[in-house]
């Protein structure tokens, strides 16, 4: 089974939409410690969180935004999805696309670094 954010016990309301495997695989190819990997994944998690909130707020009217934010603050996932299903269209797809774009950019960042290293001359 693929390593997935879905495996985590504690979830964000959008957890089931996020696939982290490509980033994990990319990081596996870089020589870093577990602590460093953990630190990088924290950045991924926070960036993902901001991206999701950004997408959702962008699709809601002001009065609905307040309700959404209130549910987010209380981690009321059912209420969040009830609201989003009534007030937005294709929001799951929009969240998936936004997160996928950001994760791909982050993977590209890593690949740029590893490609640059490949072109380097050996030391000494």
């Amino acid at each position, binding site marked *: 089974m693929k*390593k997935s*954010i879905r*495996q*985590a*016990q*504690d*979830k*964000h309301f959008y*957890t089931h939409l996020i696939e*982290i495997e490509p980033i*994990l695989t990319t990081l596996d*190819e*870089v*020589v*870093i*410690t*577990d*602590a*460093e*990997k*953990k*630190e*990088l*994944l*924290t*950045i*991924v*998690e*926070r*960036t993902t*969180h*901001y*991206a999701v*909130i*950004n997408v959702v*707020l*962008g699709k809601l009217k*002001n009065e609905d*935004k*307040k309700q959404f*934010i*209130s549910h*987010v*603050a*209380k*981690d009321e996932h059912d209420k969040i999805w009830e609201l989003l299903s009534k007030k937005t269209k294709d929001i799951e797809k929009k969240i998936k696309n936004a997160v996928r774009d*950001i994760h791909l*950019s*982050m993977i590209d*960042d*890593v690949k740029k*670094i*590893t490609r640059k*290293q*490949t072109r*380097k*001359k*050996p*030391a*000494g």
Partner: protein
Amino acid sequence: MAKRNVSDFEHIKRLWLKRHKRIQRQLIIKHKGSLSELEKHSKHIVAGSLGGLLILSHPTNATLLNQVSTRPQPNEEIVTNAMQRKQQFLDELSKQLPKQIEPVPEDVERKVVETLIKYFDLPVRAELEGKRLNRTYGLIGAEQHLMRYSGDTMASHFSTPAENRFHSSGMAPGRGAWGYFSPSRSEITQKDIDREKYYIAVQTFLSKGYMENVREFASFFKYRKVLVVNPENGKAMVVVVGDAGPGKSTGKHLGGSPEVMDYLERQDGRAKGPVLYFFLDDPDDTISLGPTAIK
């Protein structure tokens, strides 16, 4: 002026934090009014900033972190603690080590070992089974890749695209001091692969007692686990003794595989620098090879 060698981790972190801040800024600019509402509603809030608001309502103890660790800590805390601890470690070492790159007296060596044990929580030893290296603080030079089995070439040496960046280091023409790492390509194990990837060459032949009992010493040194530490940046790796060398006339005291040199941010030639290297007492083979960090 020499360009600073930035590690992959630091490089990735810098780029990702930049991206993270950009998204955070967009969110705050676009939805500041709505986010202020969260501040009013949420019982979770303990700090005032809008950026911190979302994070605090979503502690990072879940999801991605659980895939690599069971120890939850907020990012800032991890970074701050790690940086402070690394600085303490470097400060302690700089007080203990001589200004010149020279053999360390045994009383000083004992203090260095204590420091390494304290910070890395590993069974670091200057002496093991009555044997010592000729020195434990010396200049490291760059070694080439070693043939892992008969017929191993640069074309067959790497299994992931990321490893290809070590291609240019080339392969040593002969086998290492202990021969091939594996009897054949089909029999190679991950352990063999890691031993070649994370190896150092030490001057086994200069260790006290070696000439009197070559076979016993060779057997002792073969793939002996060693902790190598760059005392200037705190980077450390668990490696094996994979080869003997370099020659005394080179002015270098040990050699590191391309992967070891890259991770420790050490270079050969005029820019070469020192490392600390001590045995690890790991009779049950429980310590993994590769990068390790201050605990």
